[in-house]
């Protein structure tokens, strides 16, 4: 090995953000622990095929491979494939609408063999990539309205496709990504203000013409839980009971009585945090928030350090997505947000979510380690 190569690899290794990987790994570990708790309570043997835990292990394995591949991959190729990736995103969403299935006639999951895949999770990451490319290429024109409009136009088609499914949660995440990335790109605050104002003004229209009944119901029962103690209000109430009864130290792993006794209706996905908070208490909650905070910090640092505008934009988008999902999912579980179908990153059981996070973090690492190759 030449000296130069060794130095390069050494430099690359130094630029590899170990902390970011570590925090992400710890969060994934917590997710697996929750899967274990969930499986234990199902009463079946933990290592039996098909339990949440075993599936979680499998997805973790796949995600690890994806992460390594994404890290090794030169992210600059993403710029080249920008339009094909956009087509891919729209294609995945159209496929979901065409052959997808879900609760109550919705179309969210596509069955591939024995697995159900939620393509909208991938669509989120692809959106970040696409917007990062777009905004990154518009250096010098970021202050103008046309950049903002351009970004919005890029988001509109996938957004519509997601709303048709209907998947209100994912569509909100897309908006959060758009908003966060526009903000961080240095876009004119004045125009951003107009955009936000316009969005708020159109809310009544959205309420009347776009939102479905159950979505409205979720918002209503958030604002007035007593009005629907049977459906959404019941879930919110049970969730808060679970969380609150955790106390300082929690009831202990696999001891969550609320979930063990089937009180949380959708306990495998969205309300995992409730079980975590019940079983590990306030201290467990603090651990979780510290890990997320640290991860977000490292993502922002990568964005700051990136010598490539793509890198900064991508980091902004990823941070926006993770922050939004964290606040909304955890907020829902503890009663300060309405119920949405937004998963908690790393913790909610779901292969697609984990894979897309692996892709995102991998790309960011790819950006990190290539900052040192000044001459390439």
């Amino acid at each position: 090995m030449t000296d130069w190569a060794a130095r390069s690899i050494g430099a690359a290794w130094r630029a590899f953000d170990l902390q970011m990987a570590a925090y992400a790994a710890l969060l994934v570990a917590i997710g697996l622990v929750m899967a274990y708790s969930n499986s234990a309570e199902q009463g079946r043997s933990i290592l039996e095929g098909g339990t949440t835990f075993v599936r979680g292990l499998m997805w973790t394995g796949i995600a690890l491979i994806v992460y390594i591949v994404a890290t090794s991959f030169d992210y600059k190729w993403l710029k080249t494939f920008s339009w094909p990736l956009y087509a891919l995103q729209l294609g995945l969403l159209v496929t979901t609408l065409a052959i997808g299935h879900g609760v109550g006639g919705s179309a969210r999951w596509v069955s591939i063999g024995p697995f159900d895949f939620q393509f909208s999770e991938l669509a989120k990451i692809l959106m970040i990539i696409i917007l990062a490319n777009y905004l990154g290429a518009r250096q010098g024109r970021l202050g103008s309205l046309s950049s903002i409009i351009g970004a919005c136009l890029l988001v509109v088609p996938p957004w519509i496709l997601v709303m048709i499914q209907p998947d209100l949660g994912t569509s909100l995440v897309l908006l959060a990504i758009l908003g966060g990335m526009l903000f961080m790109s240095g876009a004119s605050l004045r125009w951003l203000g107009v955009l936000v104002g316009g969005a708020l003004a159109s809310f009544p229209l959205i309420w009347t013409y776009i939102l479905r009944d159950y979505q409205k119901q979720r918002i209503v029962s958030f604002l007035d839980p007593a009005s629907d103690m049977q459906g959404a209000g019941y879930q919110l109430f049970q969730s808060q009971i679970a969380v609150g009864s955790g106390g300082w130290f929690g009831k202990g792993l696999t001891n969550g009585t609320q979930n063990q006794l089937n009180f949380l209706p959708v306990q495998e996905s969205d309300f995992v945090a409730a079980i975590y908070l019940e079983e590990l208490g306030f201290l467990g909650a603090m651990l979780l928030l510290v890990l997320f905070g640290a991860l977000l910090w490292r993502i922002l640092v990568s964005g700051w350090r990136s010598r490539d505008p793509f890198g900064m934009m991508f980091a902004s988008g990823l941070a926006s997505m993770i922050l939004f999902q964290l606040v909304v999912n955890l907020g829902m579980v503890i009663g300060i947000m309405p119920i949405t179908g937004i998963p908690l990153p790393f913790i909610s059981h779901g292969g697609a979510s984990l894979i897309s996070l692996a892709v995102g973090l991998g790309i960011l690492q790819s950006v990190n380690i290539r900052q040192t190759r000044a001459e390439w």
Partner: protein
Amino acid sequence: MSGTYFDRRHEHTRPLSRFLIFGLAVIVGLSALTARLFYLQVLNGAQFTALSDGNRTVVQAIPSSRGLIYDRSGAALVINVPTFAVKIRPADLPEERRDEVVSRLSALIGTPIPDINAAIDGNPGSRFDLVRVAQDVPKGTANLIAEAGFDLPGVEVVVEARRQYAEGPLLSQILGYTGPVTAEQIEELKKTGYLPDDLIGKTGLEAYYEKDLRGMYGEETVERDAAGRKLQVLDTVAEAQAGNSLRLTIDTKEQKLAQQALQWGMKTAGVKRGVVIVMNPQTGEVLAMVSLPTYDNNSFARGISAQDFAGLLANPDKPLLNHAVSAHYPPGSTYKLVAGTGALADKKITPWTRVQTKPYLSIGPTKFWEWNHRGWGGCDLDCGFGHSSDTYFFQLAAMLGIDRLGYWAKEYGFGAPTGIDLPGEVSGIVPTNEWKLQALGDEIFPGEVYQAGIGQGYDVVTPLQLINAYAALANGGRLYEPRLVHDVVGPDGQVIKPFEPTLIRQLDVKPSVLKEMREAARSTVLLRHTYNLVDLPIVIAGKSGTAEFGTRDSKGRLPFDSWFIGFTPKDPTKKASDPTGAKALAKGDSELVVLAFAYDSRTVGNMATEIVKYYMQLHYGIKNDYRNFDLLERGNFYQSN
């Protein structure tokens, strides 16, 4: 973070302010979550823990086993059998799936969809209580429903005990039936441990002895999941105590004989309503009580359909009513017992006083006719009572006056419930001046006194009151409370309340007076007023009655009911040494008194007499058949007999 300036190494803008603001957003978001978590978990942790536990544990009632009912000889009349009931817990039935679940369930159990919805919505308890939707479901169906758990959320199959009435319609009027507690009742009853979907005695002995039969529900703390499924019993707070059982005074054999006799009479004469009662005058025990038409209380135990129930209610002859205690009718000539006893006791007459009977008596322009329009000349007590002379008793009633007549009526127990252990007993009416002033604003007219003396006019009595009065005559002056239950027996077989005859009163007359009245009652039979009843190989005494009521038909005739009460001495065999049977009857040791009543009979003869005659034949095993079938043909009877 490093670098707070436009760094030459980088070719693009890095707005630090934006990064800082974003970082701030992260901190704000995490802080908001932390604050809320602190509120929920630390500040209110204990309260939520309690709620969480409250979700889990629930205090549940342990139903007790309902007491059984046996007849006199110990044969089981009412037992509990296990059955599957289908219940719904509304709280576990999601609104958006309700229609689907209800229609699936309806197809499985055969209950119409509106009935199921009515049961769910009409539930008087909370949404977390179980509501009964169907009972007595076949085992196969029950299994299907139990297995379809996820497709039928909120639906549960529960094993329950239900009543089985061994003899069905034979004893329905006495036993009654159980049914679901009503919304009005549950308000009060839940204080004593009744659940909203409990069964409670509705009529008959099931209702009267509800407290004894029900026993006491126990309590256990149970861990359950959100679907309400019992996971494990955490603690048994109190064991369930089985209900007490009842051993009746009713003799099933006598009940069947009584029903046989009544059914024969009613069928032959085409009569729609009738009563037969058999009692032991020495104790007040009721050996048989039949009221027709009747119903099968097993259809209530299995869950009667609304349609069938409506049919029973709509029947004008009221099959759900026990006519023996809950309906009153004019007693007619049977009431002459009162005037007779009263006149003797008050020394208005002696048994040998000759009272002039006439074709009719007049008050002003109104004629009060003798039933045979002729009379029998001068009559003593045996003649007057034995021929059932109306004009004799008009005069006796006038001698006493309405208030004194009323006094003697009440002495015999008329005008008040007998106190039998059945619900729904009515009091009847004994007319007095006071009563009439209150009820009609006037005093009794002289003609009405006459009427009262012969059991017409305002007096109405229940069949049970009438037989009880004659029981007091037969036993020499003790008016007892009629009883249906002999012993109340605990779950371990120990007798809790042994039988004791309850004396209402000792009649305020000399025993000789009643002995003379018993002789008069024997005259009724001896003088062939009751035709060939005297020919039976037993000594029997009694009184018949033909009571008019209602409105005259086109020919000026009134409809009438037929009564007969008969009693026999303890040794009823005819003896050469006692040709009239007077010596046997003088002892007052009768153990058998029988009453028959036929409503709106319109027969040529008194069909009640024929019914009692038939019963006596069956009871004593008399080989020859003395029944006069032709007397039961339709036709106009004498105006009063």
